[in-house]
């Protein structure tokens, strides 16, 4: 009867990274070899145990490619060996020699790192910081420069800001919007929105959320579709000089969070700012400018 050495659980986890075919055939023997080697290492004390784990981890890392390559070789058959008599020969030995060299290089690198743990730590931290910062910068570059805006015609959409004395960049007023609408010939259409906050006052699940009051043509201007239902009509918009209105469109996030993306949300009455409103639609998840609804 063999005593289960400490760390065998970890080794079993490592074994799971080998291909299933390899494990099925050799797992019991691998564990047996692991236990036997552990007993020998344990006999040599703390240093022996440390060397044992260093050896086992390097061995595990260095044989991942070989085990996979063998598994693929068996699964794919013996191309180029038709007519060969006797046992199947999946590949020539040259690949094997090449992989052996790669494995030895890998083991050498691993052992060198374990011999100088301080250097290894600095090297790993440097790599981690480098990779992390690269990923973060690429994320910004991708979203700012590479990803198209989530509108139907992103090249033709602009945001108009106003400018006052002492305020180089300010919101456009309703009067300015109306002036643009009637006098400007540069734009096909103009939509207006204003950010605010509202509260779902349902006593069971009250929630303060960001909201947007918008002109009825905003989704047409931006060329975005509704996820469910429809947007406001001109008549509904004209009735509402300011919030609160009688009908609301909920954002995709709010729809998913509060109503679990229930498509039956349209027509439902929702208590908002102490009054019941009718939900007429939900916005799409693609359109970030409408997320505050």
């Amino acid at each position, binding site marked *: 009867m063999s005593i289960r050495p400490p760390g065998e659980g970890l080794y079993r986890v490592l074994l799971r990274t080998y291909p299933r075919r390899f494990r099925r055939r050799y797992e019991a023997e*691998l564990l*047996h070899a692991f236990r036997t080697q552990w007993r020998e290492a344990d006999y040599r004390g703390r240093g022996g145990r440390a060397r044992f784990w260093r*050896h*086992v981890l390097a061995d595990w890392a260095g*044989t991942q490619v070989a*085990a996979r390559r063998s598994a693929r070789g068996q699964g794919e058959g013996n191309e180029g060996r038709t007519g060969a008599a006797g*046992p199947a*020969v*999946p590949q020539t030995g040259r690949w*094997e020699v090449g992989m052996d060299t790669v494995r030895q290089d890998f083991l050498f690198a691993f052992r060198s790192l374990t011999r100088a743990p301080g250097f290894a730590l600095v090297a790993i931290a440097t790599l981690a910081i480098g990779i992390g910062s690269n990923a973060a910068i690429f994320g910004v570059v991708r979203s700012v420069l590479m990803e198209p805006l989530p509108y139907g015609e992103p090249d033709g959409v602009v945001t108009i800001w106003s400018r006052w004395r002492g305020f180089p960049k300010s919101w456009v007023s309703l009067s300015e919007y109306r002036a643009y609408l009637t006098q400007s010939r540069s734009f096909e259409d103009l939509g207006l929105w204003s950010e605010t906050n509202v509260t779902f006052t349902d006593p069971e699940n009250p929630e303060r959320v960001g909201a947007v009051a918008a002109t009825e043509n905003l989704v047409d201007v931006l060329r975005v579709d509704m996820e469910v239902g429809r947007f406001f009509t001109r008549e509904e918009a004209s009735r509402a000089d300011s919030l609160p209105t009688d009908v609301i469109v909920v954002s995709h996030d709010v729809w998913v969070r509060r109503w679990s993306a229930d498509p039956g949300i349209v027509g439902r009455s929702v208590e908002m700012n102490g009054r019941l409103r009718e939900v007429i639609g939900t916005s799409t998840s693609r359109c970030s400018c409408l997320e505050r609804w």
Partner: protein
Amino acid sequence: MDEVRRVLPLSRSLLHLLLALQEGARHGYAVKKRVEALSGGVVKMGPGTLYTTIQRAEELGLIHEAPERPPQEEDQSQRRYYELTELGREALAAEVERLGTFVDHARAALGGLA
């Protein structure tokens, strides 16, 4: 001979495995110990290296599981025993020959240093 040429040159791990099995059927751990002894303790095969090499040798037809197990007193029932196939013996002999030629050339190049 074509079959032998296809598997040459043998990797270092395969060569050690075949050498260890050349003396008779052994289970995996006994192969490891024999390889260590043959190499003067220089080559230490971890479990992963040992069994990926065994797997490779089985695929290449160089070894197979021994149909007859050793005598009961030496037997360990949970272990498989492996032995050389005919191809394995021929490949081992050819590889040793190849390496011998290489060593001869290397010695000659170094001015007859032994």
